[in-house]
Protein backbone atom coordinates (compact mmCIF):
# COMPACT_ATOMS: atom_id res chain seq x y z
CA UNK A 1 0.00 0.00 0.00
CA UNK A 2 1.02 3.62 -0.49
CA UNK A 3 0.67 6.41 2.06
CA UNK A 4 1.02 10.15 1.64
CA UNK A 5 2.84 11.90 4.46
CA UNK A 6 4.46 15.23 5.24
CA UNK A 7 4.93 17.69 8.09
CA UNK A 8 2.26 20.11 9.17
CA UNK A 9 3.09 23.69 8.23
CA UNK A 10 2.34 25.28 11.60
CA UNK A 11 3.57 22.65 14.05
CA UNK A 12 5.97 20.67 11.90
CA UNK A 13 4.24 17.53 13.18
CA UNK A 14 4.24 14.40 11.08
CA UNK A 15 0.95 14.17 9.30
CA UNK A 16 -0.81 11.54 7.17
CA UNK A 17 -3.30 11.88 4.37
CA UNK A 18 -6.63 10.31 5.39
CA UNK A 19 -8.41 10.52 2.05
CA UNK A 20 -10.14 13.77 2.91
CA UNK A 21 -7.65 15.65 5.06
CA UNK A 22 -4.64 15.21 7.32
CA UNK A 23 -4.18 13.39 10.64
CA UNK A 24 -1.25 13.13 13.01
CA UNK A 25 -2.09 9.48 13.60
CA UNK A 26 -0.75 6.95 11.11
CA UNK A 27 -3.70 4.70 11.96
CA UNK A 28 -5.89 7.19 10.12
CA UNK A 29 -3.78 7.07 6.95
CA UNK A 30 -5.48 6.03 3.74
CA UNK A 31 -4.01 3.81 1.07
CA UNK A 32 -3.69 6.14 -1.90
CA UNK A 33 -2.60 3.31 -4.18
CA UNK A 34 -1.61 4.63 -7.57
CA UNK A 35 -3.51 7.88 -7.11
CA UNK A 36 -1.02 9.53 -4.78
CA UNK A 37 0.79 11.82 -7.18
CA UNK A 38 -2.14 14.13 -8.04
CA UNK A 39 -3.10 14.38 -4.36
CA UNK A 40 0.48 15.24 -3.54
CA UNK A 41 0.53 17.95 -6.21
CA UNK A 42 -2.75 19.37 -5.01
CA UNK A 43 -1.70 19.40 -1.35
CA UNK A 44 1.64 20.99 -2.14
CA UNK A 45 -0.29 23.77 -3.79
CA UNK A 46 -2.52 24.16 -0.75
CA UNK A 47 0.56 24.90 1.41
CA UNK A 48 -0.80 23.29 4.56
CA UNK A 49 1.83 20.56 4.67
CA UNK A 50 5.55 20.77 4.06
CA UNK A 51 7.29 18.51 1.60
CA UNK A 52 4.62 15.80 1.23
CA UNK A 53 5.87 12.52 -0.20
CA UNK A 54 4.64 9.02 -0.91
CA UNK A 55 5.87 6.00 1.01
CA UNK A 56 5.45 2.25 0.94
CA UNK A 57 3.56 0.68 3.80
CA UNK A 58 2.00 -2.62 4.76
CA UNK A 59 -1.43 -3.27 6.21
CA UNK A 60 -1.44 -4.69 9.74
CA UNK A 61 -4.24 -5.44 12.21
CA UNK A 62 -3.31 -2.19 13.97
CA UNK A 63 -3.46 -0.18 10.78
CA UNK A 64 -0.93 0.87 8.16
CA UNK A 65 2.73 0.38 9.06
CA UNK A 66 5.36 2.28 7.05
CA UNK A 67 7.90 -0.02 5.44
CA UNK A 68 11.03 2.00 6.13
CA UNK A 69 12.31 2.50 9.65
CA UNK A 70 12.61 6.26 9.16
CA UNK A 71 8.88 6.53 8.53
CA UNK A 72 8.10 4.13 11.36
CA UNK A 73 10.04 6.44 13.70
CA UNK A 74 8.22 9.42 12.21
CA UNK A 75 4.91 7.71 12.87
CA UNK A 76 5.38 7.25 16.60
CA UNK A 77 8.10 9.63 17.74
CA UNK A 78 11.60 9.08 19.13
CA UNK A 79 12.13 5.50 20.26
CA UNK A 80 14.27 6.69 23.15
CA UNK A 81 11.64 8.90 24.74
CA UNK A 82 8.60 6.70 25.27
CA UNK A 83 7.05 9.54 27.24
CA UNK A 84 7.08 11.61 24.06
CA UNK A 85 5.71 9.06 21.63
CA UNK A 86 2.45 9.89 20.01
CA UNK A 87 -0.58 8.50 21.82
CA UNK A 88 -3.98 8.09 20.14
CA UNK A 89 -5.43 10.85 22.26
CA UNK A 90 -2.58 13.29 21.71
CA UNK A 91 -3.65 16.59 20.27
CA UNK A 92 -0.59 18.72 20.98
CA UNK A 93 0.28 19.19 17.35
CA UNK A 94 -3.13 20.26 16.21
Amino acid sequence: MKLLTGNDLKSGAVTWWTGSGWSIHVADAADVGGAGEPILQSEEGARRVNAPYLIDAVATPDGPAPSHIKDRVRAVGPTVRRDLTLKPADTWAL
Partner: protein
Amino acid sequence: MYCYDHYDQAIVDARVDEFRDQVKRRLAGELSEDQFKPLRLMNGLYLQLHAYMLRVAIPYGTLSSAQMRMLATIARKYDRDYGHFTTRQNIQYNWIKLSDAPDILADLASVEMHAIQTSGNCIRNISSDQFAGAAADEVTDPRPWAELLRQWSSFHPEFSYLPRKFKIAVIASEQDRAAMRLHDIGIRIIERDGTLGAQIYVGGGMGRTPMIAPLIKDFVPLDDLLSYIEACLRVYNRYGRRDNIYKARIKILIHELGADEFARQVEAEFAHVKTLDLDPPRAEFERIAAQFALPSLVPKALAAPNVASDYADPAFTQWLTQNTHPHKVPGHAIVTISLKPLGGIPGDASSSQIDVMADLAQRYSFDELRVTHTQNIVLPHVAASDLRAVYDALVAAGLASSNVDLISDIIACPGLDYCSLANARSIPVAQKIAARFADTARQRDLGELKLKISGCINACGHHHAGHIGILGVDRKGTENYQLSLGGSGAEDVSLAKITGPGFDEDGIVDAVTRVTDLYLEVRDPGERFLDTYRRVGMDPFKEVLYG
Protein backbone atom coordinates in the same frame (compact mmCIF):
# COMPACT_ATOMS: atom_id res chain seq x y z
CA MET B 1 31.95 37.62 29.20
CA TYR B 2 31.26 39.70 26.14
CA CYS B 3 28.23 42.00 26.39
CA TYR B 4 26.43 43.24 23.31
CA ASP B 5 26.97 46.84 22.36
CA HIS B 6 24.30 48.92 20.65
CA TYR B 7 25.18 47.55 17.21
CA ASP B 8 25.07 43.90 18.26
CA GLN B 9 21.67 44.33 19.89
CA ALA B 10 20.26 46.37 17.01
CA ILE B 11 21.11 43.82 14.33
CA VAL B 12 19.80 40.91 16.36
CA ASP B 13 16.55 42.75 17.17
CA ALA B 14 16.15 43.73 13.53
CA ARG B 15 16.58 40.10 12.49
CA VAL B 16 13.83 39.04 14.90
CA ASP B 17 11.45 41.57 13.39
CA GLU B 18 12.37 40.51 9.89
CA PHE B 19 11.81 36.83 10.66
CA ARG B 20 8.52 37.55 12.39
CA ASP B 21 7.27 39.09 9.17
CA GLN B 22 8.58 36.18 7.10
CA VAL B 23 6.84 33.63 9.34
CA LYS B 24 3.62 35.62 9.17
CA ARG B 25 3.75 35.58 5.38
CA ARG B 26 4.53 31.86 5.32
CA LEU B 27 1.62 31.02 7.61
CA ALA B 28 -0.64 33.18 5.48
CA GLY B 29 0.35 31.19 2.41
CA GLU B 30 2.10 34.14 0.77
CA LEU B 31 5.42 32.27 0.70
CA SER B 32 5.93 28.75 -0.55
CA GLU B 33 8.15 26.33 1.35
CA ASP B 34 10.76 26.67 -1.38
CA GLN B 35 10.79 30.42 -0.81
CA PHE B 36 10.65 30.19 2.95
CA LYS B 37 13.11 27.38 3.63
CA PRO B 38 16.30 29.41 3.07
CA LEU B 39 14.88 32.18 5.25
CA ARG B 40 14.10 29.91 8.18
CA LEU B 41 17.45 28.14 7.87
CA MET B 42 19.21 31.50 8.13
CA ASN B 43 17.55 31.70 11.54
CA GLY B 44 18.51 28.20 12.62
CA LEU B 45 15.06 26.69 12.08
CA TYR B 46 15.24 23.24 10.51
CA LEU B 47 12.46 20.79 9.78
CA GLN B 48 13.36 17.43 11.29
CA LEU B 49 11.52 14.13 11.55
CA HIS B 50 8.91 15.07 14.12
CA ALA B 51 8.79 18.86 14.17
CA TYR B 52 10.74 22.03 13.52
CA MET B 53 14.11 22.08 15.27
CA LEU B 54 15.72 25.31 16.43
CA ARG B 55 19.49 25.45 16.76
CA VAL B 56 20.61 28.28 19.03
CA ALA B 57 24.13 29.67 18.75
CA ILE B 58 26.29 29.69 21.85
CA PRO B 59 29.39 31.62 20.76
CA TYR B 60 32.52 29.61 21.61
CA GLY B 61 30.30 27.70 24.05
CA THR B 62 30.28 30.47 26.66
CA LEU B 63 27.09 31.31 28.56
CA SER B 64 26.02 33.45 31.48
CA SER B 65 23.63 32.19 34.13
CA ALA B 66 20.92 34.47 32.76
CA GLN B 67 21.39 33.05 29.28
CA MET B 68 21.33 29.50 30.62
CA ARG B 69 18.09 30.24 32.46
CA MET B 70 16.57 31.55 29.26
CA LEU B 71 17.48 28.26 27.57
CA ALA B 72 15.56 26.50 30.34
CA THR B 73 12.62 28.87 29.94
CA ILE B 74 12.44 28.20 26.22
CA ALA B 75 12.49 24.45 26.84
CA ARG B 76 9.61 24.81 29.29
CA LYS B 77 7.57 27.40 27.47
CA TYR B 78 7.88 26.35 23.85
CA ASP B 79 9.32 22.86 23.71
CA ARG B 80 8.88 19.63 25.65
CA ASP B 81 10.82 20.63 28.71
CA TYR B 82 14.31 19.71 27.54
CA GLY B 83 17.10 20.78 25.24
CA HIS B 84 19.92 18.97 23.49
CA PHE B 85 23.48 20.29 23.76
CA THR B 86 25.40 19.55 20.58
CA THR B 87 28.90 18.78 19.36
CA ARG B 88 29.02 22.32 17.98
CA GLN B 89 28.72 23.76 21.49
CA ASN B 90 25.16 24.84 20.67
CA ILE B 91 21.73 23.81 21.93
CA GLN B 92 18.88 22.40 19.87
CA TYR B 93 15.18 22.24 20.61
CA ASN B 94 13.36 19.39 18.92
CA TRP B 95 9.68 20.29 19.15
CA ILE B 96 9.31 23.87 17.99
CA LYS B 97 6.18 25.23 16.34
CA LEU B 98 6.69 27.60 13.47
CA SER B 99 4.29 30.13 14.92
CA ASP B 100 6.34 30.26 18.15
CA ALA B 101 9.71 30.71 16.46
CA PRO B 102 9.66 34.56 16.31
CA ASP B 103 8.76 34.79 20.00
CA ILE B 104 11.56 32.39 20.88
CA LEU B 105 14.06 34.48 18.92
CA ALA B 106 12.78 37.60 20.70
CA ASP B 107 13.26 35.88 24.07
CA LEU B 108 16.78 34.89 23.04
CA ALA B 109 17.55 38.43 21.90
CA SER B 110 16.53 39.71 25.32
CA VAL B 111 19.57 37.88 26.75
CA GLU B 112 21.91 38.65 23.84
CA MET B 113 21.47 35.37 22.02
CA HIS B 114 20.24 34.31 18.59
CA ALA B 115 20.12 31.47 16.09
CA ILE B 116 21.73 33.33 13.20
CA GLN B 117 24.26 31.44 11.08
CA THR B 118 23.54 28.11 12.72
CA SER B 119 22.65 26.80 9.27
CA GLY B 120 23.48 27.59 5.67
CA ASN B 121 26.68 27.93 3.70
CA CYS B 122 28.15 30.62 5.89
CA ILE B 123 30.64 30.87 8.73
CA ARG B 124 29.01 29.01 11.60
CA ASN B 125 29.32 29.52 15.33
CA ILE B 126 32.99 29.89 16.28
CA SER B 127 34.03 27.09 18.60
CA SER B 128 36.73 27.08 21.25
CA ASP B 129 38.26 25.37 24.22
CA GLN B 130 35.68 24.90 26.95
CA PHE B 131 38.38 25.58 29.53
CA ALA B 132 39.37 28.89 27.89
CA GLY B 133 40.24 31.57 30.39
CA ALA B 134 40.64 29.01 33.16
CA ALA B 135 43.01 26.40 31.76
CA ALA B 136 46.36 26.12 33.46
CA ASP B 137 48.05 25.30 30.15
CA GLU B 138 46.86 28.17 27.93
CA VAL B 139 49.10 31.02 26.72
CA THR B 140 46.16 33.42 26.63
CA ASP B 141 42.38 33.31 26.66
CA PRO B 142 41.40 32.47 23.07
CA ARG B 143 37.86 33.79 23.42
CA PRO B 144 38.54 37.47 22.69
CA TRP B 145 39.91 36.33 19.32
CA ALA B 146 36.94 34.03 18.85
CA GLU B 147 34.65 36.97 19.64
CA LEU B 148 36.49 39.15 17.15
CA LEU B 149 35.98 36.44 14.54
CA ARG B 150 32.31 36.21 15.53
CA GLN B 151 31.82 39.92 14.93
CA TRP B 152 33.75 39.80 11.66
CA SER B 153 31.84 36.78 10.36
CA SER B 154 28.35 37.86 11.43
CA PHE B 155 26.43 38.94 8.33
CA HIS B 156 29.72 39.15 6.42
CA PRO B 157 28.31 40.01 2.99
CA GLU B 158 31.09 38.30 1.06
CA PHE B 159 30.85 35.06 3.00
CA SER B 160 27.09 34.58 3.39
CA TYR B 161 26.93 32.25 0.37
CA LEU B 162 30.09 30.21 0.48
CA PRO B 163 30.39 26.99 -1.52
CA ARG B 164 29.56 25.14 1.70
CA LYS B 165 29.27 25.66 5.45
CA PHE B 166 32.41 26.79 7.24
CA LYS B 167 33.57 26.05 10.78
CA ILE B 168 36.35 27.77 12.70
CA ALA B 169 37.88 26.81 16.06
CA VAL B 170 40.26 28.87 18.20
CA ILE B 171 42.40 27.43 20.98
CA ALA B 172 45.44 28.64 22.92
CA SER B 173 46.77 25.48 24.58
CA GLU B 174 49.00 22.63 23.58
CA GLN B 175 46.21 20.33 24.65
CA ASP B 176 43.47 20.44 22.07
CA ARG B 177 40.06 20.17 23.72
CA ALA B 178 38.17 21.55 20.70
CA ALA B 179 39.08 19.12 17.88
CA MET B 180 40.75 22.14 16.31
CA ARG B 181 42.35 20.34 13.37
CA LEU B 182 39.03 18.85 12.35
CA HIS B 183 37.62 22.27 11.49
CA ASP B 184 37.69 24.13 8.17
CA ILE B 185 40.07 26.52 9.89
CA GLY B 186 41.77 25.71 13.15
CA ILE B 187 43.61 28.49 14.94
CA ARG B 188 46.06 27.76 17.70
CA ILE B 189 47.41 30.82 19.49
CA ILE B 190 50.99 30.29 20.56
CA GLU B 191 53.74 32.31 22.17
CA ARG B 192 57.04 32.68 20.35
CA ASP B 193 59.89 34.80 21.66
CA GLY B 194 57.50 36.57 23.97
CA THR B 195 55.04 37.42 21.21
CA LEU B 196 51.62 35.91 20.65
CA GLY B 197 50.72 34.71 17.21
CA ALA B 198 48.56 32.10 15.54
CA GLN B 199 49.25 28.83 13.83
CA ILE B 200 46.72 28.43 11.05
CA TYR B 201 45.47 24.99 10.06
CA VAL B 202 43.11 24.85 7.09
CA GLY B 203 41.09 22.10 5.49
CA GLY B 204 40.10 19.76 8.27
CA GLY B 205 36.71 18.24 8.76
CA MET B 206 34.73 15.10 9.27
CA GLY B 207 31.70 14.19 7.17
CA ARG B 208 31.94 11.70 4.33
CA THR B 209 35.53 12.68 3.52
CA PRO B 210 37.34 13.15 6.83
CA MET B 211 40.59 15.09 6.73
CA ILE B 212 43.04 16.51 9.23
CA ALA B 213 43.85 20.15 8.55
CA PRO B 214 47.44 20.74 7.46
CA LEU B 215 49.43 23.66 8.81
CA ILE B 216 49.17 26.51 6.33
CA LYS B 217 50.99 29.21 8.25
CA ASP B 218 53.29 28.71 11.19
CA PHE B 219 52.95 32.12 12.78
CA VAL B 220 50.56 34.94 12.00
CA PRO B 221 50.94 38.00 14.23
CA LEU B 222 47.62 38.47 15.99
CA ASP B 223 47.34 41.99 14.67
CA ASP B 224 47.06 40.40 11.21
CA LEU B 225 44.73 37.56 12.17
CA LEU B 226 41.51 38.86 10.66
CA SER B 227 43.20 39.80 7.40
CA TYR B 228 44.81 36.39 7.13
CA ILE B 229 41.56 34.54 7.81
CA GLU B 230 39.78 36.83 5.34
CA ALA B 231 42.39 35.88 2.75
CA CYS B 232 41.79 32.16 3.43
CA LEU B 233 38.07 32.62 2.97
CA ARG B 234 38.52 34.64 -0.20
CA VAL B 235 40.63 31.95 -1.85
CA TYR B 236 38.07 29.34 -0.83
CA ASN B 237 35.15 31.45 -1.98
CA ARG B 238 36.83 31.98 -5.34
CA TYR B 239 37.91 28.41 -6.08
CA GLY B 240 35.79 26.16 -3.86
CA ARG B 241 33.55 23.90 -5.92
CA ARG B 242 29.91 24.86 -6.19
CA ASP B 243 29.01 22.20 -8.76
CA ASN B 244 29.17 19.22 -6.40
CA ILE B 245 27.99 19.44 -2.80
CA TYR B 246 30.20 16.49 -1.85
CA LYS B 247 33.31 18.29 -3.05
CA ALA B 248 32.43 21.79 -1.90
CA ARG B 249 34.16 21.94 1.49
CA ILE B 250 37.50 23.71 1.72
CA LYS B 251 39.21 20.42 2.62
CA ILE B 252 38.57 19.17 -0.91
CA LEU B 253 40.00 22.36 -2.43
CA ILE B 254 43.13 22.03 -0.35
CA HIS B 255 43.40 18.34 -1.10
CA GLU B 256 43.23 19.07 -4.83
CA LEU B 257 45.42 22.19 -4.82
CA GLY B 258 47.88 20.96 -2.24
CA ALA B 259 48.50 22.75 1.02
CA ASP B 260 51.57 24.60 -0.29
CA GLU B 261 49.77 26.01 -3.31
CA PHE B 262 46.77 27.01 -1.20
CA ALA B 263 49.12 28.74 1.24
CA ARG B 264 50.83 30.56 -1.64
CA GLN B 265 47.50 31.84 -2.93
CA VAL B 266 46.48 32.92 0.55
CA GLU B 267 49.75 34.83 0.92
CA ALA B 268 49.09 36.67 -2.34
CA GLU B 269 45.55 37.51 -1.26
CA PHE B 270 46.71 38.48 2.20
CA ALA B 271 49.12 41.03 0.69
CA HIS B 272 46.09 42.67 -0.90
CA VAL B 273 43.70 42.30 2.05
CA LYS B 274 46.24 43.88 4.37
CA THR B 275 45.94 47.10 2.38
CA LEU B 276 42.23 47.25 3.22
CA ASP B 277 42.83 48.06 6.87
CA LEU B 278 40.52 45.29 8.02
CA ASP B 279 42.15 44.44 11.34
CA PRO B 280 40.69 46.41 14.23
CA PRO B 281 42.68 49.00 16.12
CA ARG B 282 44.40 47.49 19.11
CA ALA B 283 42.19 49.58 21.39
CA GLU B 284 39.07 47.93 19.99
CA PHE B 285 40.52 44.51 20.59
CA GLU B 286 41.46 45.53 24.12
CA ARG B 287 37.87 46.68 24.66
CA ILE B 288 36.64 43.23 23.71
CA ALA B 289 39.36 41.42 25.65
CA ALA B 290 38.61 43.38 28.81
CA GLN B 291 35.19 41.72 28.90
CA PHE B 292 36.83 38.33 29.20
CA ALA B 293 38.99 39.27 32.16
CA LEU B 294 39.53 36.52 34.68
CA PRO B 295 37.17 36.95 37.65
CA SER B 296 38.70 38.08 40.91
CA LEU B 297 39.72 34.67 42.16
CA VAL B 298 41.68 34.70 45.37
CA PRO B 299 44.53 32.20 45.21
CA LYS B 300 44.06 29.66 47.95
CA ALA B 301 45.99 26.82 49.37
CA LEU B 302 45.53 23.59 47.50
CA ALA B 303 43.56 22.13 50.38
CA ALA B 304 40.74 21.27 47.95
CA PRO B 305 37.46 20.41 49.71
CA ASN B 306 36.88 22.03 53.03
CA VAL B 307 35.97 18.92 54.97
CA ALA B 308 38.62 16.27 55.32
CA SER B 309 36.01 13.57 55.69
CA ASP B 310 34.83 14.33 52.15
CA TYR B 311 37.64 12.10 51.01
CA ALA B 312 35.98 9.22 52.82
CA ASP B 313 33.14 9.42 50.30
CA PRO B 314 34.33 7.34 47.35
CA ALA B 315 31.64 8.68 45.03
CA PHE B 316 32.71 12.25 45.68
CA THR B 317 36.37 11.32 45.35
CA GLN B 318 35.66 9.64 42.04
CA TRP B 319 33.80 12.72 40.83
CA LEU B 320 36.70 14.95 41.88
CA THR B 321 39.13 12.72 40.02
CA GLN B 322 37.12 12.42 36.86
CA ASN B 323 35.13 15.63 36.55
CA THR B 324 37.46 18.37 37.79
CA HIS B 325 40.54 19.80 36.11
CA PRO B 326 43.32 22.11 37.27
CA HIS B 327 42.56 25.83 37.19
CA LYS B 328 45.18 28.45 36.46
CA VAL B 329 44.52 29.99 39.88
CA PRO B 330 45.57 27.75 42.77
CA GLY B 331 42.77 26.62 45.04
CA HIS B 332 40.23 26.56 42.23
CA ALA B 333 39.02 23.94 39.82
CA ILE B 334 37.25 23.60 36.50
CA VAL B 335 34.18 21.41 36.91
CA THR B 336 32.74 19.37 34.07
CA ILE B 337 29.11 18.40 34.53
CA SER B 338 28.45 15.17 32.69
CA LEU B 339 25.27 15.04 30.63
CA LYS B 340 25.78 11.31 30.20
CA PRO B 341 23.85 9.62 33.02
CA LEU B 342 23.31 5.89 32.77
CA GLY B 343 20.19 5.36 30.68
CA GLY B 344 20.09 9.00 29.59
CA ILE B 345 20.45 10.63 26.20
CA PRO B 346 23.89 12.15 25.58
CA GLY B 347 23.64 15.94 25.66
CA ASP B 348 20.04 16.16 26.81
CA ALA B 349 19.09 18.18 29.87
CA SER B 350 15.67 18.96 31.28
CA SER B 351 14.65 22.55 31.93
CA SER B 352 14.99 22.01 35.67
CA GLN B 353 18.50 20.61 35.22
CA ILE B 354 19.42 23.57 33.04
CA ASP B 355 18.13 25.86 35.77
CA VAL B 356 20.18 24.01 38.39
CA MET B 357 23.33 24.45 36.32
CA ALA B 358 22.56 28.16 35.89
CA ASP B 359 22.07 28.53 39.64
CA LEU B 360 25.33 26.74 40.39
CA ALA B 361 27.18 28.96 37.94
CA GLN B 362 25.75 32.06 39.55
CA ARG B 363 26.58 30.93 43.05
CA TYR B 364 29.90 29.18 42.54
CA SER B 365 31.39 30.01 39.13
CA PHE B 366 31.21 33.77 38.66
CA ASP B 367 28.10 33.51 36.54
CA GLU B 368 29.75 31.52 33.76
CA LEU B 369 29.13 28.21 32.05
CA ARG B 370 30.56 26.54 28.99
CA VAL B 371 29.18 23.97 26.60
CA THR B 372 31.70 21.37 25.45
CA HIS B 373 31.86 19.71 22.06
CA THR B 374 31.58 16.47 23.99
CA GLN B 375 28.05 17.51 24.98
CA ASN B 376 28.81 18.31 28.60
CA ILE B 377 28.64 21.54 30.61
CA VAL B 378 31.52 23.26 32.39
CA LEU B 379 31.63 25.50 35.44
CA PRO B 380 34.97 27.18 34.77
CA HIS B 381 35.83 28.93 38.03
CA VAL B 382 34.91 26.97 41.16
CA ALA B 383 36.73 27.41 44.48
CA ALA B 384 38.00 24.12 45.81
CA SER B 385 36.18 24.79 49.05
CA ASP B 386 32.89 24.88 47.13
CA LEU B 387 33.35 21.60 45.28
CA ARG B 388 31.45 19.53 47.82
CA ALA B 389 28.46 21.86 47.70
CA VAL B 390 28.48 21.81 43.91
CA TYR B 391 28.70 18.03 43.89
CA ASP B 392 25.82 17.64 46.34
CA ALA B 393 23.63 19.90 44.24
CA LEU B 394 24.51 17.94 41.12
CA VAL B 395 23.67 14.66 42.84
CA ALA B 396 20.27 16.04 43.75
CA ALA B 397 19.67 17.07 40.14
CA GLY B 398 20.81 13.78 38.61
CA LEU B 399 23.87 15.46 37.11
CA ALA B 400 26.72 13.91 39.06
CA SER B 401 27.83 11.12 36.73
CA SER B 402 31.56 10.69 37.31
CA ASN B 403 32.46 9.57 33.84
CA VAL B 404 34.14 12.42 31.96
CA ASP B 405 36.44 10.96 29.27
CA LEU B 406 35.47 7.40 30.22
CA ILE B 407 33.73 4.96 27.90
CA SER B 408 30.23 6.02 28.98
CA ASP B 409 30.96 9.71 28.24
CA ILE B 410 29.73 9.01 24.73
CA ILE B 411 29.23 11.58 22.03
CA ALA B 412 26.12 10.67 20.07
CA CYS B 413 24.29 12.65 17.44
CA PRO B 414 20.45 12.70 17.60
CA GLY B 415 20.42 10.02 14.90
CA LEU B 416 17.31 8.54 13.39
CA ASP B 417 15.28 9.23 16.50
CA TYR B 418 15.16 12.90 15.51
CA CYS B 419 17.23 13.75 12.44
CA SER B 420 15.89 13.71 8.91
CA LEU B 421 19.36 13.04 7.49
CA ALA B 422 20.13 10.03 9.68
CA ASN B 423 20.19 6.45 8.47
CA ALA B 424 20.31 4.74 11.84
CA ARG B 425 19.65 5.45 15.48
CA SER B 426 22.61 6.55 17.58
CA ILE B 427 21.08 7.10 21.00
CA PRO B 428 19.89 3.54 21.70
CA VAL B 429 23.35 2.24 20.81
CA ALA B 430 24.93 4.75 23.19
CA GLN B 431 22.53 3.70 25.93
CA LYS B 432 23.23 0.00 25.44
CA ILE B 433 26.99 0.52 25.49
CA ALA B 434 26.73 2.68 28.61
CA ALA B 435 24.64 -0.02 30.25
CA ARG B 436 27.13 -2.71 29.28
CA PHE B 437 29.90 -0.72 30.97
CA ALA B 438 27.80 0.53 33.88
CA ASP B 439 30.23 -0.82 36.44
CA THR B 440 32.27 2.25 37.37
CA ALA B 441 35.27 0.19 38.43
CA ARG B 442 35.33 -1.38 34.97
CA GLN B 443 35.12 2.05 33.34
CA ARG B 444 37.95 3.37 35.46
CA ASP B 445 40.03 0.32 34.64
CA LEU B 446 39.54 1.04 30.94
CA GLY B 447 40.66 4.61 31.54
CA GLU B 448 40.37 7.38 28.96
CA LEU B 449 38.33 5.99 26.12
CA LYS B 450 36.46 8.29 23.78
CA LEU B 451 33.57 6.59 22.06
CA LYS B 452 31.67 8.55 19.42
CA ILE B 453 28.58 7.58 17.45
CA SER B 454 27.11 9.09 14.29
CA GLY B 455 23.82 8.09 12.72
CA CYS B 456 24.93 8.96 9.21
CA ILE B 457 27.96 9.81 7.11
CA ASN B 458 27.69 13.52 7.97
CA ALA B 459 29.49 12.60 11.21
CA CYS B 460 27.85 15.03 13.64
CA GLY B 461 28.75 12.44 16.30
CA HIS B 462 32.46 12.77 15.40
CA HIS B 463 32.90 9.01 14.90
CA HIS B 464 36.03 9.61 12.80
CA ALA B 465 37.66 11.11 15.89
CA GLY B 466 36.65 8.39 18.32
CA HIS B 467 39.16 6.11 19.95
CA ILE B 468 36.23 3.87 19.16
CA GLY B 469 33.94 5.23 16.48
CA ILE B 470 30.57 3.90 15.38
CA LEU B 471 28.78 4.88 12.19
CA GLY B 472 25.16 3.91 11.63
CA VAL B 473 24.26 3.05 8.06
CA ASP B 474 21.17 1.86 6.23
CA ARG B 475 21.74 -1.62 4.84
CA LYS B 476 18.75 -2.55 2.72
CA GLY B 477 16.35 -0.82 5.10
CA THR B 478 17.97 -2.19 8.24
CA GLU B 479 20.15 -0.32 10.70
CA ASN B 480 23.74 -1.49 10.62
CA TYR B 481 26.74 -0.19 12.52
CA GLN B 482 30.33 0.09 11.30
CA LEU B 483 33.04 0.00 13.93
CA SER B 484 36.21 2.05 13.60
CA LEU B 485 39.23 2.37 15.84
CA GLY B 486 42.10 4.74 16.45
CA GLY B 487 40.65 8.20 15.95
CA SER B 488 41.41 11.25 18.04
CA GLY B 489 40.25 14.84 18.00
CA ALA B 490 42.89 15.93 20.49
CA GLU B 491 46.45 17.17 19.99
CA ASP B 492 47.39 13.65 18.90
CA VAL B 493 44.79 13.94 16.14
CA SER B 494 44.12 10.96 13.91
CA LEU B 495 41.29 9.47 11.90
CA ALA B 496 39.73 6.19 12.90
CA LYS B 497 39.92 3.20 10.56
CA ILE B 498 37.01 0.86 9.87
CA THR B 499 37.51 -2.62 11.29
CA GLY B 500 35.48 -4.51 8.69
CA PRO B 501 31.89 -5.55 8.11
CA GLY B 502 29.29 -3.90 10.29
CA PHE B 503 27.08 -5.24 13.07
CA ASP B 504 23.46 -5.02 14.11
CA GLU B 505 22.44 -3.06 17.21
CA ASP B 506 23.25 -5.77 19.72
CA GLY B 507 26.24 -6.95 17.73
CA ILE B 508 27.93 -3.56 17.89
CA VAL B 509 27.67 -3.56 21.68
CA ASP B 510 29.31 -6.99 21.77
CA ALA B 511 31.96 -5.78 19.34
CA VAL B 512 32.85 -2.86 21.60
CA THR B 513 33.11 -5.29 24.49
CA ARG B 514 35.46 -7.56 22.56
CA VAL B 515 37.84 -4.76 21.54
CA THR B 516 37.96 -3.37 25.06
CA ASP B 517 38.56 -6.84 26.50
CA LEU B 518 41.48 -7.26 24.11
CA TYR B 519 42.84 -3.89 25.16
CA LEU B 520 42.79 -4.94 28.82
CA GLU B 521 44.59 -8.12 27.86
CA VAL B 522 47.43 -6.64 25.80
CA ARG B 523 47.94 -3.13 27.12
CA ASP B 524 51.27 -2.06 28.54
CA PRO B 525 51.35 -0.20 31.85
CA GLY B 526 50.03 3.34 31.49
CA GLU B 527 48.69 2.85 28.00
CA ARG B 528 45.31 4.24 27.04
CA PHE B 529 43.14 2.29 24.61
CA LEU B 530 44.33 4.59 21.84
CA ASP B 531 47.98 4.05 22.72
CA THR B 532 47.58 0.30 22.65
CA TYR B 533 45.76 0.41 19.33
CA ARG B 534 48.54 2.51 17.86
CA ARG B 535 51.17 0.12 19.18
CA VAL B 536 49.62 -3.19 18.19
CA GLY B 537 47.73 -2.07 15.09
CA MET B 538 44.39 -3.17 13.70
CA ASP B 539 45.03 -6.88 13.13
CA PRO B 540 44.59 -8.19 16.71
CA PHE B 541 41.33 -6.25 16.98
CA LYS B 542 40.11 -7.68 13.68
CA GLU B 543 40.99 -11.12 14.93
CA VAL B 544 38.78 -10.83 18.02
CA LEU B 545 35.97 -9.28 16.00
CA TYR B 546 35.86 -11.52 12.97
CA GLY B 547 38.02 -14.56 13.82
